[in-house]
């Protein structure tokens, strides 16, 4: 009974139903979304990892890479130190030159690669082993390259391979693999040479990075791909199982060197993973493989310990043997997961609701605003009636007047009021299209202008909303001035679009959607302020100032200041990602976040005019 009367109360109180309730609901959605994420590291919400693909059989084989191979390793190392770049004897070897230009910087290099043809295979499937000359941190990957060469010589002697093994030696971790993998699938730009030598469909890729001389302690596994795509969890699990179970080497992830499995450390690991996923840049040579649906990870030995290069070699041998067992492409396990420890994860079903709730809060507000413009005219009586299609009035001036009056009186009662859609629709879609301008600018200009452009853009962000708000309030030069209902409709459409884009994005890149959703959260609660000028002006100026702190360029400057990375570096990397890796984080920033933010500012700014 209590519920029934509560519902009846709600129906009789439109102010509560259309204004207060959506605000409360939206706020709840955001809070629950964030709390949801914070709950994930708890044991009740996360799961122990497990190997889902039975064919992998991790650690079930004896790894023979020992003993005398070490002498070969030393020999190769000496030769490499003398800078003789040659593929190991007996392999088919080819080279590929490439060149990229981004933000006015040229990148060029030459990939060397060789293929071991599988004695038991038919060259329809292959595994890739990559050892770049420079690691992702720009160190000389001396031991990594040597190890790859030694393994190539060693693998050649075994008759058990049923998949070809391709050894790739790109000059650096940023461009080389991208050029190679693009050319492998014949999707390379004109500045990249095609590959003279190819094998079958790639089943998996392992990247070796061993840039220091001393023995190592643990294995750091990097798994983030471009645009937040992740490799199949089975590959990661296999690496952890082999390193930990078979070789007795611990595995780390996300640069968490001391992980005591506490709540804080788990959360920190998740958040680091989400940051990398959200930014969507390539974290290593393996990242370029991900867009082609090739699961790939980088293995980085870390720390001071007693494990030598032979232990790493055996790990890689065992991993290759596991991949060699595969009967079909890795598909059994999860592609969407958040790892919080090398043996604990949450799957998409558990974590997705948090981003969806945050995206949903915008949709809830959009629906509420739409209903409010139709059913309930707040503050100013007669607003909805006054806005009742000026077009129809001018078209049919007489004859139906009495009928019309009847309808209008009805409309103000219980049924739907007319909405004026043309201006809100045009404005919202136009502003989203304008987002292409900064997108183009920040991906095209030379790198030395990036810092200046960012600061100029902060200025533009201060001025542009005010200009737009002034134009809108004065009717855009057209005779009819904008009515309050249209402001609500503008907000409704903008939030609807934001909610739509973010929920779609959540299925592709959860972390990016979550981050943008949080940064946009204030936009739900921003409206045009009405009332006395003395109240209106200070509040809207203060609100605009606060909102400007949350504008895309301001956030970029803030983050750069906090992390100590120069703005130019970040934007150069971003432009490089756009040009070479096919990264689309910028599209989301400039065509989803920025327009929504701009419309929020315009609404707030319009209260000053």
């Amino acid at each position: 009974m209590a519920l029934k009367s509560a519902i009846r109360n709600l129906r009789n109180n439109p102010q509560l139903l259309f204004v207060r309730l959506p605000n409360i609901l939206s706020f709840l959605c955001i809070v629950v979304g964030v709390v949801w994420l914070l709950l994930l590291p708890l044991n009740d919400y996360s799961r122990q990892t497990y190997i889902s693909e039975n064919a992998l059989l991790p650690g079930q084989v004896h790894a023979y890479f020992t003993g005398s191979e070490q002498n070969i390793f030393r020999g190769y190392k000496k030769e490499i130190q003398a800078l003789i770049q040659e593929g190991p004897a007996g392999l088919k070897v080819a080279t590929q030159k490439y060149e990229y230009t981004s933000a006015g910087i040229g990148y060029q290099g030459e990939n060397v690669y060789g293929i071991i043809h599988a004695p038991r295979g038919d060259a329809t499937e292959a595994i890739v082993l990559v050892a770049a000359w420079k690691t992702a941190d720009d160190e000389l990957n001396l031991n990594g390259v040597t190890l790859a060469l030694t393994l190539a010589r060693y693998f050649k002697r075994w008759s058990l391979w049923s998949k070809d093994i391709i050894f790739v030696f790109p000059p650096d971790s940023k461009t080389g693999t991208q050029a190679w993998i693009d050319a492998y699938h014949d999707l390379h730009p004109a500045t990249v040479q095609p590959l003279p030598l190819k094998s079958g469909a790639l089943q998996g890729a392992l990247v070796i990075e061993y840039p220091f001389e001393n023995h190592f302690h643990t294995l750091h596994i990097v798994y983030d791909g471009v645009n937040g795509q992740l490799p199949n969890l089975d590959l990661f699990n296999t690496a952890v199982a082999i390193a930990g179970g078979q070789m007795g080497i611990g595995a780390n992830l996300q640069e968490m060197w001391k992980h005591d499995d506490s709540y804080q450390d788990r959360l920190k690991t998740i958040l680091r993973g989400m940051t990398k996923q959200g930014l969507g840049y390539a974290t290593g040579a393996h990242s370029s493989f991900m867009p082609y649906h090739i699961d790939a990870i980088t293995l980085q030995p870390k720390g001071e310990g007693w494990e030598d290069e032979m232990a790493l070699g055996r790990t890689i041998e065992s991993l290759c043997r596991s991949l060699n067992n595969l009967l079909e492409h890795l598909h059994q396990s999860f592609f969407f997961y958040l790892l919080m420890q090398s043996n604990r994860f949450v799957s998409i079903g558990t974590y997705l609701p948090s981003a969806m709730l945050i995206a949903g809060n915008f949709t809830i507000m959009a629906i509420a605003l739409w209903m409010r413009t139709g059913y309930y005219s707040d503050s100013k009586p007669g607003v909805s009636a006054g806005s009742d299609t000026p077009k129809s009035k001018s078209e049919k001036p007489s004859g139906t007047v009495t009928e019309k009056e009847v309808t209008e009186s009805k409309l103000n009662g219980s049924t739907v009021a007319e909405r004026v859609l043309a201006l809100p629709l045009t404005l919202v879609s136009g502003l989203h299209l304008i987002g292409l301008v900064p997108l183009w600018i920040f991906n095209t200009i030379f790198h030395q202008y990036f810092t200046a452009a960012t600061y100029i853009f902060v200025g533009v962000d201060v001025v542009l909303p005010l200009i737009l708000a002034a134009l809108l309030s004065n009717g855009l030069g057209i005779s009819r001035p904008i009515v309050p209902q249209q402001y609500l409709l503008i907000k409704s459409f903008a939030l609807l679009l934001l909610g739509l884009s973010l929920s779609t994005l959540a299925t592709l890149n959860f972390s990016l959607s979550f981050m943008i959703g949080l940064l946009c959260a204030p936009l739900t609660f921003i409206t045009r302020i009405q009332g006395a000028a003395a109240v209106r002006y200070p509040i809207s100026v203060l609100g605009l100032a606060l909102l400007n702190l949350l504008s895309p360029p301001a956030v970029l400057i803030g983050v750069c200041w906090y992390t100590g990375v120069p703005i130019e570096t970040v934007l150069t990397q971003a432009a490089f990602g756009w040009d070479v890796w096919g990264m689309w984080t910028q599209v989301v920033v400039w065509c989803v976040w920025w327009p929504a933010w701009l419309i929020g500012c315009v609404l707030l700014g319009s209260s000053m005019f």
Partner: protein
Amino acid sequence: MAVDRRKVAVFGAAFVLRLLLICLFPSLPDLLTGRVEVSTPVNSFKRLQEGLYLYTRNVSPYDGGVFHQAPLLLPLFSLLPDVNSNPIPTAIFYFLVDLVNAHALATISESGQSVQSRLHSAMRKHIRWDGTSVAAWFLFNPFTIATCLARSTSVFTTSGILLAVSNAVSGNTLNAMLALGLASYLSMYPALLFVPLALLCYDQRAQKSAQAPSSGLFILQHGAILSGSIAGLLGLSILITGNFWEFMSATYGFHLLVPDLTPNVGLWWYFFIEMFDSFREFFLGVFWLHLASYVGGLTARLRRQPLFIITSLLGVFAVFKPYPSISDASLYFALLPLYRHLFPLMRYTFFAISALLYSSLLGPAFYHLWIYAGSGNANFFYAITLVWSLGLSILLADSIFAALRDEWEQDHPERKGQEVKQV
């Protein structure tokens, strides 16, 4: 003839927008041509190119089983310059077809047939958009633009249907039937529109002449004209292809038997993939019967508003056709603004439109996850096509509800504005 400046501005802007899009993003047409949401096996421009290649080399275009479109398109397109070296003329041809469609739509709107027909006069006549606004909704609809840029051959079927209706509302019943004949020849399913279109023509004739002609004879006459026009077009096709049965089975047989189960936005492909072969014929019959049954039901119930029957049927086709694409939805969305006066009576527009928006964003995303990223599967995309169909059906059901409510209010003026209760 006085030139309507607003109309010229809208048409010009639509043309320039399309031209800008292909000049700024030269890869856009090819990208859209490859999208399953836009190009189905029966309207794909890529397949047309294949047919054209065979045709210009004197091989039967239906050899190879890729091309399934009407043969008369081939001589038409062989007149245009090669699209790979010079894509602009073909694109401009498609732009012009779009403008012709928009013009036909404006004619339909200006006739006022949607608010005031022989047997029906809407309650809210004053709430109405003029022809130019309706044409603008059509021309600036992203789905229309996508269809036009993808150079889908559905636009010719759309032209046939829109020209048929616009001729019917202007009283040129012969031209209306000829245009419908063209549309039916191209895509077969528009033939289902014959009954409501004949009713529309009949109402027009009855309104104009002093005494109404005999309805049975009128429908027979027009049925004969339609069959004659289709037969004429088929005759021309034989001249082109030579082998009559080969082309019949490759085009209409393909429509009827649905052998190609490439994903599209419709409901058939997944269903027939899952089906055991022994049930295939039965369910083909059921699906076609289901699609055709709407004609009888809607015609009987909404006899007083033949144009609304046509609109609703186009909505039904956009959901339940074997190879629907977004061009079918865009045709339905083009005719819906004619019923602007019903919008105040519709209850779920915002939800239906939100569902459509969600599915049009999530559809490509899930298709990407399925086909390219490999992290999703067919069910992802199928789920979204269900949401898309759900959104369209809600819109359809809601508009029919509004039309019925409008009729009911006319019959019971004293009950106007009262809330409906389900009994």
